[in-house]
């Protein structure tokens, strides 16, 4: 039995995710979209906090909300003139989007729902994700250790920096 606070919190988060997701993709003002996205990201972080992954929630806020959103906002400001809003959608386009979304969600939803008893699983109470464990796992070479991906992603990020430079360079 969950505490009432948890339940209320869950509903707030869930509704926020749903509502702001929808708003993100339907808002005709691009800056508003970005703002709604920020709310979605916060709500996601809320989920992480709620299920006990505080570190992850923090990363989510720091990287996404702090980093990526800034990038978005800057680029929006760079590329759009104020007061610009998107044209209305054509029915054709809407229809295409809806079919794709429904097809994707439908298939996934059906698959998930068909896995009934697993989906109805509750959260187990004891969870031990302290920051030390995370740190050790991150640099461990044993099973459930992530040293190699950690090193590998550094290469990826380096490559992306170089790539960014290549693209951004004037000449």
């Amino acid at each position, binding site marked *: 039995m969950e505490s009432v606070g948890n339940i209320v919190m869950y509903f707030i988060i869930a509704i926020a*995710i749903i509502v702001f997701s929808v708003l993100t993709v339907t808002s005709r003002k691009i800056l508003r979209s970005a703002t709604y996205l920020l709310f*979605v990201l916060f709500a996601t972080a809320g989920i992480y906090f709620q299920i006990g992954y505080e570190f992850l929630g923090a990363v989510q806020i720091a990287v996404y909300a702090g980093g990526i959103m800034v990038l978005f906002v800057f680029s929006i400001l760079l*590329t759009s003139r104020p007061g610009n809003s*998107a044209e209305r959608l054509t029915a054709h386009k809407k229809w295409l*989007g809806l079919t794709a979304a429904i097809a994707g*969600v439908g298939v996934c939803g059906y698959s998930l729902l068909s896995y009934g008893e697993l989906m109805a699983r509750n959260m187990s109470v004891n969870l031990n994700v302290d920051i030390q464990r995370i740190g050790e796992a991150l640099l461990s070479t044993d099973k*459930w250790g992530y040293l190699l991906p950690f090193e590998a992603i550094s290469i990826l990020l380096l490559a992306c920096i170089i790539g960014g430079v290549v693209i951004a360079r004037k000449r």
Partner: protein
Amino acid sequence: MEITMMMYLIPSLIMFGCGVYGFITRKNMIAILISLELMLNSVDINFTVFNRFLFPGQMEGMFFTLFAIGIAAAETALAIAIVINVFRAVNKVDIRELTKMKF
């Protein structure tokens, strides 16, 4: 009332659906990138939720999410660079500009 795994997955799925919808309907390339963020985010939620509910003993899903956030950041950065690049070339961020090559 119990909060089951499903109850977390459903918002995530809807988020994913919204991402898909947005990707296909939006015209602004940055809006499309925003939609993509939604999709990636929903995947992250899936991983964490699966980890927490089904396999609480280890942190595979969480770490995947951690790395996925990193990857997403890199992707977004590069994508925005490309969008800016396109903007420089055609002075627009309209995705409909990008249909010169076809068939």
